[in-house]
């Protein structure tokens, strides 16, 4: 991190160190005193922020990996090539830390492999999610490994892995389709608990379609951040292609959001949920649909038409926030909506602390990888990569 001659203790790094230290304390509390000691979870609200944010949002926002690699390798959008590695890196880190975060939430974290190796509950959507996420983390690790292998100089293995790109990309899209949608399908089993405006037998479709928006928005959003912090690590190709990638992703996200808006509309119509729109939940639903689906869609369109990166970046912030709001709504805000206010869930500050800790670990690891390994630039000895 101290690759430029400045002192290691920059304000950013001090804050990072502070969060990491605090996170370790909370981690100790969680595993020493139990879930109840650090969370506001109870028997009515078994899933909170760690599922709603760390798992639901984590997986959705890591969708950039499959979106980018599929565009580049399967759909022939060659100019996305320089964006693939950063996206795969983020996706791998995202998924890896989703699994890490899950260990906090599970009562018996060390039993996490049980569904895969000991007792397969195949009727559970969660089994499907677990199987896919486990497989996909492995796939992402292999897809990402050339960056590390080039850094370490293992040419032979690296060349072998590169040969696997096509089947791995296809497998990645298959697995992503399955578990992104299954995350939504988790709630299909609870029609009585999730508010009708959000409940739908098409929840898996909604989750899958919006994961594409999450993926492309995140690629743009991260690109913005990376350009601020890691500009010096980017090679000419990356810098040259970055705008094209952003505009392409923006165009895609804009159109997908429009489609997403309509399938939501159809769903409300088919279930005849109109009467709920006049309630408080209805107002909140409209905020989500107009403020975080239609608005980013129009902003993206505007940015693309005007070739204005600034608008595209603002749109990406709305896109990312929209995904977070949607996942929060389904897993927390509109879940258990019929319970009286006193029995509803609101996260404990320590739950929030653990989530911030996990995000900080991800960012720190990304910075480390992007500084050391050929992610934002091509390794001079491996120019054959495309």
């Amino acid at each position, binding site marked *: 991190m101290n690759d430029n001659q400045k002192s290691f203790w920059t304000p950013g790094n001090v804050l990072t160190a502070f969060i990491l230290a605090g996170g370790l304390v909370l981690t100790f509390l969680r595993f020493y005193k139990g879930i109840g000691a650090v969370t506001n979870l109870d028997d009515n609200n078994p899933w909170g922020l760690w599922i709603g944010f760390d798992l639901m949002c984590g997986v959705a926002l890591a969708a950039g990996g499959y979106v980018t690699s599929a565009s580049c390798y399967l759909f022939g*959008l060659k100019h996305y090539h320089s964006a693939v590695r950063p996206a795969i890196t983020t996706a791998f880190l995202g998924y890896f830390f989703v699994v890490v975060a899950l260990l906090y939430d599970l009562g018996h974290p060390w039993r996490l492999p049980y569904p895969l190796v000991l007792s397969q509950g195949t009727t559970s959507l969660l089994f499907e999610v677990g199987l896919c996420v486990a497989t996909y983390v492995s796939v992402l690790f292999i897809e990402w490994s050339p960056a590390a292998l080039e850094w370490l100089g293992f040419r032979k293995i690296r060349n072998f892995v590169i040969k696997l790109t096509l089947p791995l990309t296809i497998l990645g899209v298959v697995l992503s389709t399955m578990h992104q949608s299954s995350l939504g399908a988790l709630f299909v089993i609870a029609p009585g608990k999730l508010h009708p405006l959000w409940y739908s037998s098409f929840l898996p479709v909604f989750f899958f379609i919006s994961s594409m928006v999450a993926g492309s928005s995140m690629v743009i959003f991260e690109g913005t951040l990376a350009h601020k912090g890691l500009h010096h690590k980017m090679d000419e190709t990356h810098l040259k292609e970055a705008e094209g990638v952003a505009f392409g992703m923006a165009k895609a996200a804009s159109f997908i959001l429009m489609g997403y808006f309509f399938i939501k509309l159809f769903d409300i119509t088919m279930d005849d949920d109109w009467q709920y729109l006049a309630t408080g939940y209805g107002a909140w639903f409209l905020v989500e649909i107009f403020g975080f689906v239609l608005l980013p869609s129009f902003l993206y369109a505007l940015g693309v038409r005007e070739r204005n990166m600034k608008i595209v970046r603002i749109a990406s912030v709305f896109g990312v926030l929209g995904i977070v709001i949607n996942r929060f709504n389904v897993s927390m805000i509109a879940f258990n909506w019929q319970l009286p206010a006193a029995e509803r869930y609101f996260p404990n500050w320590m739950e929030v602390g653990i989530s911030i800790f996990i995000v900080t670990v991800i960012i720190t690891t990304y910075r480390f990888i992007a500084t050391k390994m050929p992610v934002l630039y091509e390794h001079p000895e491996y120019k054959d990569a495309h």
Partner: protein
Amino acid sequence: MHRRKFLSLLGGAGLASAMGATKAKAGGGTHTFKGYPDAMGVLHDSTRCIGCRKCEQACNEVNNLPKPSAAFDDLTVLDTKRRTDAKTYTVVNKYNTAGLEHPVFRKQQCNHCQEPACASACFVKAFTKNPDGSVTYNGDLCVGCRYCMVACPFSVPAFEYDDPLDPLVQKCTMCHPRIQEGKLPGCVEICPKEALTFGKREDLLAIARERIRKYPDRYEKHIYGETEAGGTSWLYLSPVPHAELGMPVVGKTSAPELTSGALGAVPMVVGIWPVLLAGAYGISKRKEKIAAEERAEAVKDAVNATKAEADGALKAAMEKADKEKAAAVDREVKKAVAEAEKAFEEKLAAAQAPADEADAGETPEEEA
């Protein structure tokens, strides 16, 4: 162009799988499942329940649960709404409903669904629907994900949040071990008012219908649990609409029926996605190849054109050069002729003057 294809392919497949989902709703297709023929159950008749909390006490004792802070004969706890938790498998709540001068009591515990949502949701098969009708839990398998709690339409399973080492899900077992021994469930055995009846679910349904038929004024015309969540082993009769006793409004669809659509879409994705994606890959490769060929063709044309142009220029240059050469020769010849004439004239003049040099007509050698 690519982008649009990308979208339509993805969207098409997603919607197709969802359509598969709705079609597959029936789950077993033509199969029907009636549940275990000898499944037992319990009928709770709230018109008979007096809220004595004896069932809570018996439950606590037969399950060796820790003693609660308030004694079981303390009926003031009925004034606050309670739910089951990891140390309490059953609770009785009091409801003062309009139109009745006495309160109505509702007993809560696991309803032991015919198609248990917890078992359907559990990804390690920790829950089992037993042939005796009870739904039991195996803590040795439990990962502690608490999806069963999310899935349960009656919010029954509870979790030991305060145990850092071995936190488990807890709920009523319908006294499965006692039933195996030929005994009654603890709560049923102790009930002093026969508000609880244990028996075959089929028989209990008949009894409940009979009571409604005999005393239509006393009962709400609905047996809660007959169809709720696909049917439950526990059945309830009430003098008021069940919703007024805080019973959750639960549809008829059982948990496995709810999820079968989404589950059925998974193999469809596995089967169709690689085909579509390989197709998209093939198309983009083919386009690339065509583009490459077109590019090669264009390059060839360009080369040819350039070559032709170059040839033309060369030819013109050559012609020009030839012309110039000819002109130069001409010029030189003329020049030489002129010089020769001049020389001749001079010589002639000189010859005319002092002497004659007759042979002066020699032409100069060509140099060009």
